[in-house]
């Protein structure tokens, strides 16, 4: 079951990449498409940040992950590279749990 989802999602992602190289340029450059498509990752990534920080399963939870997110935000504002942002967040959560 998980394999089916993995393969279907991979095929969909490849299809979207190929569509960009194959579909008529007129369709892709339509103002509505140009305006809307870049907003979708913004909404989804923000939703992922929120849900992965403040929940466990379907329960809302406030724990050390919230503090780790604040540290990650500071790292992002300081223009830290991707891996540094991830590592300082994980380290913050690990250290706070040790206290």
């Amino acid at each position: 079951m998980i394999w089916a989802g993995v393969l279907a999602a991979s095929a969909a992602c490849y299809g979207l990449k190929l569509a960009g190289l194959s579909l008529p340029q007129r369709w892709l450059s339509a103002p509505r498409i140009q305006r809307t498509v870049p907003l979708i990752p913004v909404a989804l990534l923000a939703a992922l940040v929120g849900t992965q920080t403040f929940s466990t399963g379907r329960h809302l939870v406030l724990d050390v992950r919230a503090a780790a997110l604040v540290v990650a935000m500071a790292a992002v504002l300081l223009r830290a590279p991707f891996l540094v942002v991830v590592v300082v967040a994980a380290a913050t959560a690990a250290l706070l749990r040790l206290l």
Partner: protein
Amino acid sequence: MAAGLSVLQTCALSVLMFTGASQFALAGVVGAGGSVWAGAVAAALLGSRNALYGLRLSSVLNRGGPRSFIAAQFVIDETTAMAIARDDPALSRFAFWSTGLALFVLWNTGTVAGALAAHAIADPKVFGLDAAPPAAFLALLAPRLRAREPLAIAMASAVVAVAVLPFVPAGVPLLVVALLVAVYGLTR
């Protein structure tokens, strides 16, 4: 990263999907106990931006030729950024292919190492690994927030997703915000 997915499934995503945010989203939804199909839809929605990159690469790559079936897999944030940063088409083409190949090798090597390491750790709370995914999503999100509108959309999306979370299956909050933002973008 490997939450809920086997090592082989995690590695398959890096080879076959090869677009980081989508991979993390699918793994995140499955890891939170959601349906793999909700994760698959979220992954595909996140991959929609790659379709627009094809347009920006049209002066660099031959659209529609047989080679575009291979080139397509490399159409991601990083290769597009490297290719369009060059003025000369030949240099752009070289930047696209070299970045694509190098990232493909590094990304897949890193995935194997990461998936094996994550599976060796029984409890994700050890080393604060449960705080790593939100930080990764934030780092992917940050470069897209350089204007007021995306910043407002990001904050609203996070609030809506957390608010509906207790009432719907895992993964569905992502689909709710994607639908809302699509309606907003298309009707505005």
